[in-house]
Each structure stands twice: as C-alpha cells, then as structure tokens.
C-alpha cells in the first residue's frame, strides 16, 4: 500500500492548507456560547478567595484563622500548613508561589485561602484572618538586588555557576558564545558600549485565571481551568498535593489569551485543597488586580552591550552582559535572552553572560519568546546606532551580517536553511522601506529570532460511521489551532475541511502533551495530526483491499479514496473514505489513527520589522504611523492566523516599547495593578499592521511548517526605539519610551 506522501513540502500542491476557511470556534466566541474558565459551575459549588500579602517582604510569624473558620457560610480555610511538604526544588517553588511559607516574598503573595457559600462571605472571611507579619527590607530592582548588601530573599540558594562573593539574590550565571571578543573588538573602526534597561511587562491576557476543582471522597479529582496546558496542570498539582497523576483529570476551558502566562499554576492547587477540605466543588476566579499582582509577568532587565563594527558595516565582535530579575524565585529567562541576543548574526567573535536574579516581585512566567525581546532591544539598538553613526543603511548592515544556512549560531548549533536573509530582502523591496517621511517622523528596523519547540504530543483521529472525522488533541487552542488541525487532517485525507471537527481533550483522553508554548502546536500537533491521518489511511487501504480480495500492497490512497495500484490488481472503482467508513463494522470494526511522538525538528524562525513613528516634540507623545512585519512561516497553514500572530506580537511589542511597565512604589508595592495605568495599546493607538509571510519550508515538518507565534514580539521594542531615535535625534536606552521619559530626553538635547 502506498500513500501519496509528497514529502517535498516546498513543491507540494496543497488543496486546503494555505486557504482561509472560517474558524470553527468563531461563532461560539462571538455569541457567548464558548465556555471560559469562569463559566464552569457544579452543583453545591463554593466560592474560593485568596488573602494576599500587602508587604513586599515579610516574615510570617503566625496566621490565625479561628474567626474566619467560625463565620457562618465558611466551609474551609487553608494556609501553607495544610499543604504537604514537597522535595523537588522547582515544584516547591511553584507551591511556595501559590501559597507562601515562612515568608511573604512580594506584594500580592498568597498567604491563606477560604472557600465559602458566596463571594461576599469569602471576602468577609478573608478580613477575619489575622496574619502577624514582621516586615523585612525588600528589593524590587534588578541592579539593586545584585549589590552584595542587598536584602536577600533566599540566603544560599545560588547554584554552582555563581562565583562566590556576589549578592545572595544572584541565582545562576549563564554563558554562551565563541571566538575572542577582545581580538574582534580590536579589529573594529568603532566600539559602541551602551547600557539598556527594560521594565517588566505583563502578557495582558483578557481572561483572568479561573478554575473549578472537585475532589471526591475517594480521592479522585476533577479540575476545569483556563490554562495553556492541562497535562502541566495535572502533573504540577499532583506533585504538589501528593496525588497520582491518573487520579486527577484536568479539562481545559476555552482560553481568553495566555501568551505564556498560563503555563504554570496559581489557583489550581489551592482550589483542589479547599475542595478536598470542604468536600464540595470550589470555584476560584482572580480579579484583575490579582492577575497583575500575583500571576507571572516577565522579567525586568538591565543589559550592557559592546559591539565593534568596521566603517563598512561588518560586525567584528558582539558582547552582552544581561541581568534579568525573574521575581521571587530562580528561573528568569536570562538564559534564553543570552542565547538569542546575537542569533540573527553571523559573528566570528560573540559572547553573552546572563545573570538570573531574584527580587521581591511575583514569580515571572513565560511571555511570548521569553527573554528574547529585551536582549534584541539592546543588541538591535546598538547595531542601529553604529550603522547610523557611520551613515550606513541599517537594513544593509543587517543584510551584511545576517546569519545564513551554515552559520554557526551564537548559542552553539549550526543553522540549517533559515529565512532571515529572505525577510531582510523582502523588507528592502517593500514599498514601506522607501516611503517618504515628514517632519518629526522616523523609521526604524530590527530583526528577531526565536528557537521554537516540538515536544511530547498525542493526537487521536477517529473516522465516524458516516465518514466525518473527529480529531482529539491535547493542546488548548490559543491561536486557531483547531482550524489548522482540521485543515491538515482534511488535506491529508482528501476530504472537505467542514468534515473534520477538532476538539481539545481532557487529560484522561490522551497521553502526555507538552503545554501550548514554544510556538509548538501547529508544528508538533500538526505533525502528529498528519501522522494520525496517515495511520487511518493505511487502515482504510487494508479494509478496501480486503473487500476487493486483493493484497494490501496492491492498493493506493489517492485523492481521498483507495484505488487499485494498477489494472493488474483488478478493475475496482475507487472506494472513498465515506464508503469505507460505512462498512467498517463489517470489515474489522471502527477505524482510527493515532500518533504519539516527541516531535523533533521544529525549525527556528526569524523576522524583520519596520516601524514609522511620529513624535510630538512638545509632549513626547509617540504615534505609530506605519508598521510592517516580514517573517518566515515555513508554510502558512491558515494565513489569517499567521498574520494574526504577526500583528499580535507586533502590538504587544509596541506596548512594551511605549507604555507598558510594572511600576513599583517606594513601599515596594505595585502601583498600577489594572488596565487603566498598565497601558496596553488600544485599537486607536495603532495603524493596520501590515504583514508579509515568507515560506522557507522547515525540513522537519511534512508540510514545512515552522512555529510563528513568538518571533513577532522580538523585534518591535528595538524597531520602535530606533524609529523614535531617527525621528528625534535622541536615543532612548530605557523602555518604555513613555512621554515623560521622551520629553525629558528631547529637552535635554
């Protein structure tokens, strides 16, 4: 039996992949029928609420819950004392972040939780809990936290990479690169040394964290929640609560945005424990204030860069030292920042050093290309300054130094076929690059890189008796993946898109799946969907051969039907999928295909962005006039979604560049825990973001797909900063470029 697997993805003619059908989740979302985390309910359900520390750093001397427990309507109260002890350090940190132990480590840190008959009773009960805090000195700034005498969050937790004599807040040191930096710098016509800072930002997903937990008297539990990974939630909660993974079933809701921020747990273990104690289902929903104070924003950073360039634009060496604070626990994405900082360039001498630092802030969580946008801001700003200083075209300088197939990447591997150069050439040819600019206007360009990921993936594809197809996958659909999976299944099976329905399964229905992160889903789940469809096709070939009484090798799958390979095999009219499905019960039973794989071969992805800005020199207000994203998608399965990812990443990056920031007061408390003063861009702040999809097939995927979700947030910070610099003649090295900061810089000129 032969399948028409045309493996040469670059030349393959697709029928469905590459078209733009309606998204299957669209009607539910616009009519309100879709069920998000807070829409779940259960009979007898209680409402859970969390008491949070008002102190940025404090010893918890005691917690008295007597009065709360005595309040009518209160069914359970938990503090850290109710949780089991956890040995694994990473899991112990997650537990400590969900419920503080001896110390409250940041403003908003959970210290107790209640489950009560109503939200009003629960909130009242929180007021009756008496926590005896002994406030401690605190530190929220990354550079201050690295000073040897800084208040220490966790004395003696640094790992073996950290040299002695540093602040106890330094948790790890990372180093990457090759060559000889000093020799490289010596060959330059100019060496630029600059320090950059970026502030912490939040993913800004519209849906707050929410879950409903129900633990039965037999210890079997169900959890419904809004997450990027139901298997991660299951495994983490099981580890924290000492449960077996098989006894906890987690069902993900629709998700109102995550961007990496829903790749860990906050409420879920607490809700499970409350439910266990109360013997009733417990629902918990964060307020927006809680989301800002106590979920996982990204790191704030302080970065020093040294880059040497010849006067014709060749980069002779690149060095960066990166300091990222990741909140109160180790694990800031400084490692990925250090690896990605110089990834777009072909450098003989390159080195990065990264420092992972803890501060009295919430534990950071992943945010779209974790760690990379800040590093790119620093490096791309410096390259721009050097290029402009020599009077060179910043795009040409990037082309001159661009990484290509065969380039030894700054973080180690040698690149296979990659698309950076194609995006730069497309940028150069794009009408945007040569459009005229008016007064107070400027244009910036920047490149970005992201690794992308594959990982553990399971897909089960079932053929129903009437010939429709259901696909079960284990990854919450954040970016339109149900549509993409249905398209790839339909493509492979040769049936219309409308005949396939893809659902997101609970943890009891499929094997382990990694979370929806690393831009992995269209790549890895797509690959598994295609393999599952191929398995089903093999089975259908067998069934048809059996009906025709010929050898399975004598049939072939072509255009959605089984046919005899050649006239020698007998004259049989083709059997369609629907015809085979209809008689499946008589030919051996139901037909399905499935695939379980640790998907390798996720291709790296590059993009180039062009931004035009206009600056009001009297107020420092920055307007984005025009913006173009050019990125390699490998193969765009559903181009609308690819464009949506490009646009969404650009917009988040623009917000990061211009206004978004976590602002801490002198009291160590977050000053802007809400969307009024944490300013994500609104629609009227933005032009239509123009997109150009390039398709340089990823050899690691049957259709050539690369992840596209994260790369687009990497270049905008620098693209916008470079445009502002071009418009004003002043260079801002501290993001966000908020109007007060920019006006002060313009007036100081």
């Amino acid at each position, binding site marked *: 039996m032969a399948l028409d697997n045309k493996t040469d993805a670059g030349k393959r003619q697709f029928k469905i992949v590459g078209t733009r059908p309606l998204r299957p989740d669209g009607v539910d979302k616009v009519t309100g029928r879709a069920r998000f985390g807070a829409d779940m309910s259960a009979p007898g359900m209680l409402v859970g609420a969390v008491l949070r520390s008002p102190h940025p750093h404090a010893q918890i001397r005691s917690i008295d819950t007597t009065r709360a427990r005595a309040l009518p309507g209160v069914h359970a109260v938990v503090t850290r004392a109710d949780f089991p002890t956890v040995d694994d350090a990473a899991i112990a940190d997650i537990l400590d972040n969900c419920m503080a132990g001896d110390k409250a480590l940041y403003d908003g840190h959970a210290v107790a939780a209640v489950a009560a008959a109503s939200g009003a009773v629960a909130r009242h009960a929180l007021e009756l809990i008496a926590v005896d805090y002994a406030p401690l000195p605190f530190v929220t700034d990354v550079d201050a936290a690295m000073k040897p005498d800084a208040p220490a969050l966790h004395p003696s937790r640094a790992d073996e990479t950290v040299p002695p004599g540093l602040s106890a807040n330094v948790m790890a040191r990372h180093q990457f690169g090759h060559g000889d930096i000093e020799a490289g710098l010596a060959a330059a016509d100019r060496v630029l040394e600059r320090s950059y800072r970026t502030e912490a930002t939040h993913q800004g997903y519209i849906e707050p964290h929410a879950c409903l937990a129900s633990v039965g008297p037999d210890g079997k539990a169900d959890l419904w929640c809004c997450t990027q990974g139901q298997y991660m939630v299951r495994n983490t909660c099981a580890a924290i609560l000492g449960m077996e993974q098989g006894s906890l079933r987690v069902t993900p809701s629709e998700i109102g945005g995550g961007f990496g921020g829903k790749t860990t747990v906050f409420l879920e273990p607490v809700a499970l424990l409350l439910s266990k104690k109360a013997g009733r289902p417990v629902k918990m929903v964060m307020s927006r204030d809680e989301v800002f104070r106590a979920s996982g924003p990204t790191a704030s950073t302080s970065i020093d860069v040294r880059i040497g360039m010849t006067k014709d634009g060749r980069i002779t060496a690149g060095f960066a030292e990166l300091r990222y604070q990741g909140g109160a626990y180790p694990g800031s994405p400084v490692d990925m920042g250090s690896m990605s900082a110089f990834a777009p360039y072909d450098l003989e001498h390159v080195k990065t050093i990264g420092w992972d630092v803890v501060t009295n802030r919430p534990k950071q969580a992943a945010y779209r290309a974790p760690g990379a946008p800040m590093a790119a801001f620093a490096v791309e700003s410096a390259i721009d300054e050097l290029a402009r200083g020599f009077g060179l075209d910043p795009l040409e300088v990037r082309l001159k130094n661009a990484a290509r197939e065969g380039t030894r990447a700054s973080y180690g591997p040698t690149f296979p076929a990659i698309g950076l150069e194609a995006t730069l050439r497309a940028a150069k040819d794009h009408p945007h690059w040569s459009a005229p600019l008016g007064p107070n206007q400027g244009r910036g360009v920047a490149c970005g890189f992201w690794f992308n990921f594959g990982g553990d993936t399971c897909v089960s594809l079932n053929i129903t008796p009437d010939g429709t197809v259901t696909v079960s996958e284990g990854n919450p659909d954040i970016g339109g993946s149900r549509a993409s999976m249905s398209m790839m299944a339909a493509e492979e099976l040769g049936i219309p898109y409308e005949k396939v329905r893809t659902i997101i399964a609970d943890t009891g229905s499929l094997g382990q799946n990694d979370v929806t992160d690393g831009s992995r889903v269209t790549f890895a789940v797509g690959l598994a969907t295609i393999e599952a469809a191929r398995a089903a096709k093999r089975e259908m070939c067998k069934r048809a051969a059996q009906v025709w009484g010929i050898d399975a090798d004598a049939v072939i799958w072509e255009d959605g039907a089984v046919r005899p390979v050649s006239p020698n095999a007998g004259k049989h009219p083709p059997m369609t999928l629907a015809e085979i499905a209809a008689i499946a019960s008589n030919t051996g039973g139901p037909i399905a295909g499935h695939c379980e794989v640790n998907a390798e071969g996720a291709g790296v992805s590059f993009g180039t962005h062009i931004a035009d800005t206009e600056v009001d020199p009297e107020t420092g207000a920055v307007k984005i006039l025009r913006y173009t994203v050019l990125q390699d998608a490998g193969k765009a399965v559903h181009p609308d979604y690819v464009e949506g990812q490009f646009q969404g990443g650009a917009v988040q990056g623009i917000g990061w560049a211009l*206004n978004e920031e976590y602002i801490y007061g002198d009291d160590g408390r977050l000053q802007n825990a809400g969307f*009024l003063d944490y300013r994500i861009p*609104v629609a*009227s702040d933005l032009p239509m973001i123009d997109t150009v999809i390039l398709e340089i097939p990823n050899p690691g995927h049957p259709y050539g797909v690369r992840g596209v979700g994260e790369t687009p947030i990497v270049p905008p910070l620098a693209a916008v900063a470079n445009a502002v610099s071009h418009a004003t003649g002043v260079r801002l090295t501290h993001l966000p470029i908020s*109007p*007060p900061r920019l006006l*002060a810089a313009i007036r100081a000129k």
Partner: protein
Amino acid sequence: MQYISPTTVDEAVHALSSATGACRILAGGTDLLVQMRAGMKRPDTLLDIKRIDALHQITAEDGGWRIGAAVSGAEMGEHAALVSDWPGVVEAVNLIGSTQIQGRATMAGNLCNASPAADSVPALVAANAVARVVGPHGQRDVAVLDIPSGPGKTTLEPGEFVASTYLPARGARSADAYLRFIPRTEMDIAVVGAAVSLTLDADGICTAARVALGAVAPKVLLVEAAARALIGSRLDAPALDALAEACSAAAKPIADKRGTVEFRTQVAGVLARRATLIAQTRAGGPA
C-alpha cells in the same frame, strides 16, 4: 445595602437627609460602581437619581443652558445648540471613557467624584459654570470652581447634592476648547488638562478669557494670570508664550505613576497654548 430610586428632587432630598449610615448618590455609576467593586467605597445606601425626570433635562435659561445632573455625556453630545454654544465643555464631557461609558456617565458625577484629573471640570471652570446644590436647607448656587476641595472631596454639606449645572449665556465671537494629555489615544486618564474660554472683538482682540488646568494640583486651577496674558492681545506669539508660562508657573503637580512634575508643568503650558488656538478658530478667527 439599600438601593433607593426616588422620582422627585424633594423625595431625594428627604431620603438623603434621613438615610442612616453612609449614603451615596448614584448617577451613571461609572466611578462609584468601580470604586465599590474595588472595595474603596462601601455605602450603606445608594440613592439613584436617574429616575428623577427633572434632572434629565437640558433647558435654555436666560440665554444659557441648565443641564440636569442625570443627563448623560452622550445626550449632551447630541444637543446641537448646546454644542454650538459650549463646544469645549461638551468635548471635555465627551472625552470621558468610551461609547459605553458615555451612555451612563454624567457631568455632575464627574464633578462630584472630585478627581483632580476629571475632564469636564477645567472646561466648566473656564466656562464660569455654576452648580445648583439642593439639600435639607433649600437650594444654593455655587461656582463649579468651589465644589471640589481636594482629591475625592467636595464642599457639599451632608444631605446636599448637585441638581444641575448652569452654563451662562454666550456672546458673539466667543468659544471654548479643552485638551488633555493622555499616553494613549483613548480610555485613559488626563495627565494634564487645559481649558480655555474666550471672547474676541471684531478685530480679533481678546476681550475676555478664562483659563483652567486639571491634574496639576489637588483640585482644578483657575489661572487668572494666564487669562490676563490673553486679554487685550491678538493671541499672537508673545501672548501665547506668556499664557504658557503662566500656566506652567501655576501648575503645582505631584509626580506619580502617570507623570513627573517636570512633564506636567511643561505640558500644561503646551496644552493651554494649543487650546487657545482652537478656541480662537471656533470664535471666528483673528479678524
């Protein structure tokens, strides 16, 4: 918590003065309900004034306009004659929030919430508007300038509330304008606000002016020195420079998450200058 919704002003006055515990007026609720949700305010009684027909009117009075305390921002924006007389006041009211907020929010609520950054208040002060206050001891008329006394505080006595706001008659070649600075293009709170109301003579010389600033002091500022800089001038560059300087000098802002002292001080002058030019054009231009 109790919710009451009287249908006459007298009933409301009675209910307010006889309520036990904290009683708050509920107009559009776009400040109050948000503050209650955040746990900042916990009234025992909510007195909704939206059922009082008399407070829903925009009426012509002595050549000016009386605007009831329950009139929404959207209703003001749709009132062509009011917009033509007081374009700056209406644009300030219409800047509040979004389409949804405009359907609920009132100008009186914006005033009585007493935020230093309230958008309509500088425009009302520049317009020399007067609030009609009702209470257990009858009614009194109070200049809008004297209603707020500091962040979140008003000079209203217990049992009093604002029933309406009066915008005076408008002469020929008179107009007003309001500008605010926000980091975004909408859905934001003024970092600085500046309102200018002025009258020109046939030659384009400014004969009367009032200039007010928001968000640069604990309450709205009437900047008389800025008005003096305009009066008698043709609103030429030296007059505008003097106006901007007077505004920056009058500004006594705090530094907070929304802006620095320097920024607010600087931008107060910039906005006052720009608002003056808009008002000038609306008033019929230089000559």
